[in-house]
């Protein structure tokens, strides 16, 4: 009896495997689709449901955490009753890897893809999987000046392959309680780097067990390196990096004096910047505006209790430069060159990145790419934003925006070198000069290739 069951099982296994092995595409496809749930649409040609609706497939991340996806879709579907937008969540951490793998070859059926960052954008453009948008932009008469020059920075060989809809820029978050306790005036929107450094030092307390840190720099290279490009004289892909020296020296000195937490410890402990700020012992932290909605949300739910009294100010500026210059991190939409419904996809993109889309984004506390007085009022008017505080509201008005990573064919290779040197300098395993020399040498070699 036992033997019979066993041989039966073996036979089954053999049949299954040989089926799997020999059966061609057709058989497997039916197998797979019979198994798949209703949510899935499997076809490379335009997918139409019974009522003749066209489905657009849109790749996104963090569906459950992002509040503006559904309102955008609702608004678009309202004006286009015959279109259905289907989101596919590729997860946030490895989003670009999964997306690039998905778009490899010719079998993908995404209509709209979200592009997370500039290196990811360059990867897709270099692979040739994105559709240039210029002709669409022209025929729809989109006014690119409303992006305040951002779209010029993401042109590759004079062609635009993505349109930004979200634009986070960096500001200085600060904890008002710490300033009050130390009797120091809040940061203003017009600080020079010297004033900022002095302010951070005046707030630091080094009593063991009750440390207060005047400033906090997250372990990203942007948190330190990009102070250097705000005067507009240099970019991060120039191949010459001497301009970073004063900023590294400032931060390293602060680290040495205990004004800020040690990079090596932050790196190995994996402390997230939100956790650091929420501890209530960080006076100032430079971070992107995406943190605004997180902090508002966590205070509302009662999780953050030690930083409820917060505000934002503009980035400090170098001597003789107009305040308000800062870094921008854009999130954009693009059309893959294999997209089944390109024209409809464009209509959706055009809507999301337009002023109408911007207002929907702003009402969820997110900074859209199209910024004007009305939109920034919407953001500063959201529930939980620091009220009766002109500085915080004003900090949303930027003068000049520089991309964290400008467009360059080699941007992902350059990124690697910059990260490595940043790590070496900040852990102290390399002097500032040696680190800069290494950047000059290696990036010079990459650019010369």
């Amino acid at each position, binding site marked *: 009896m036992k*033997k019979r069951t*066993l*041989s039966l*099982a*073996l036979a089954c*296994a053999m049949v*299954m*495997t040989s089926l*799997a092995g020999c059966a*061609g*595409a057709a058989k*497997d*496809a039916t*197998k*797979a*689709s019979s*198994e*798949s*749930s209703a*949510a*899935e649409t*499997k076809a490379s040609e335009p997918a139409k449901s019974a009522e003749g609706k066209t489905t657009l497939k849109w790749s996104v*991340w*963090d*569906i*459950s*955490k992002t509040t503006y996806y559904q309102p955008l879709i609702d608004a678009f579907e309202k004006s286009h009753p015959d279109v259905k937008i289907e989101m*596919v*969540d*590729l*997860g*946030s*951490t*490895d989003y670009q890897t*999964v997306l690039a*793998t998905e778009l*490899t*070859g010719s*079998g993908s059926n995404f209509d709209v893809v979200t592009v*997370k960052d500039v290196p990811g954008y360059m990867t897709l453009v270099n692979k040739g999987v994105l559709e240039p948008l210029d002709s669409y932009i022209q025929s729809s008469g989109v006014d690119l000046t409303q992006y305040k020059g951002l779209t010029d920075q993401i042109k590759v060989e004079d062609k635009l392959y993505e349109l930004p809809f979200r634009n986070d820029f960096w500001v200085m978050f600060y904890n008002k309680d710490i300033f009050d306790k130390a009797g120091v005036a809040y940061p203003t929107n017009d600080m020079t780097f010297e004033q900022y450094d002095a302010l951070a030092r005046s707030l630091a307390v080094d009593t063991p067990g009750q440390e207060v840190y005047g400033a906090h720099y997250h372990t990203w290279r942007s948190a330190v390196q990009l102070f250097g490009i705000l005067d507009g004289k240099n970019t991060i892909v120039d191949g010459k990096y001497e301009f970073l020296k004063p900023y590294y020296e400032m931060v390293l000195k602060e680290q040495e004096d205990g004004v800020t937490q040690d990079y090596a*410890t932050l790196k190995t*402990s*994996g*402390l*997230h910047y*939100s*956790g650091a700020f*929420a*501890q209530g012992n960080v006076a100032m932290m430079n971070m992107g505006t*995406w*943190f605004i*909605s*997180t902090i508002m949300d*966590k205070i509302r739910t009662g*999780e*953050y209790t030690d930083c409820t009294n917060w505000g934002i100010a503009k980035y400090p500026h170098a001597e003789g430069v107009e305040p308000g210059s800062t870094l921008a991190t854009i999130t954009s939409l693009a059309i893959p060159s294999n997209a089944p419904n390109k024209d409809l996809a464009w209509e959706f993109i055009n809507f999301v990145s337009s002023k109408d889309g911007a207002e929907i984004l702003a009402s969820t506390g997110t900074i859209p790419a199209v910024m004007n007085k009305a939109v920034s009022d919407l953001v500063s008017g959201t529930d939980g934003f620091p009220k009766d505080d002109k500085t915080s509201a004003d900090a949303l008005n930027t003068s000049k925006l520089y991309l964290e990573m400008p467009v360059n064919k080699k941007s992902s290779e350059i990124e690697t070198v910059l990260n490595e040197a940043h790590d070496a300098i900040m852990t102290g395993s390399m002097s500032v000069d040696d680190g800069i020399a290494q950047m000059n040498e290696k990036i010079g070699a990459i650019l010369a290739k």
Partner: protein
Amino acid sequence: MKVKSTNYKIRRCLLYVVLLLLTAAMLVPFAWMLSASLKLDKDVFIFPIRWIPQHPRWQNYLDIWTKIPLLTFVTNTMKITLIVTTLQLLTSSFAAYAFAKLKFRYKDTLFMAYIATIAVPWQVYMVPQFMMMRNFGLNDSHLAIIFLQAFSAFGVFMMRQFYQGIPDELCEAARIDGMSEYQIYAKIMLPLSKPALSTLTIFTFVNTWNDFLGPLIYLKTEAKKTLQLGLKMFISQYSSEYGLIMAASVLSLIPVLIVFLSLQKHFVEGVAATGVKG
């Protein structure tokens, strides 16, 4: 005589001390996971470690079921893991028998082909494999993950090594008795290889259960995702809920430990215990 027994006692004591120290070293991470699973995420990475949270948040263990469709993920992972483990056990023990006890043409070549592939990191052939699977229409299906995992060279290699430890004379005797090779496999080899089969079950189970990259590339519909992808859902672009991740990780350990505990008794009843004296 007395000297010998005190000597023995001291040695025993030392052994237990060493074992207990090792246990402590092994269990520290688990203690940390447990403690982190009862914290708010802002407190998880605070240094120095606070082992016993001030206000334990048992809520975390409830939240993980509502914040993400955890039950679906567990069911999916369970399904994939069970199918993969069954296929892996059957096919590799079957193939391993031929490699260990039969003589045939191209044996060494075929076996080297198996071993050689173990040495190739998955990252290298992930893209060609993905494109192939997609052509078969297997993108976004559990079948892709099952095929990916079920026919690993590792299982064949491991089973072959264990079969080689079983004396050839046993098979020869059975052949003389007129048993076919299939009968020898089913009646002699399988019952003898319980320790090896248990080991392979544990390893396959753990690997499939904890696999992250495979499901990441292949599974996109939320209803099909697995537990490890679910864990990552607590890490979003701008925040990461480590308290919840750790709570879910603690729960995800339970099936693995159950499998380990229930199979490890088979390690004890090896060849000697089944009554065969080589």
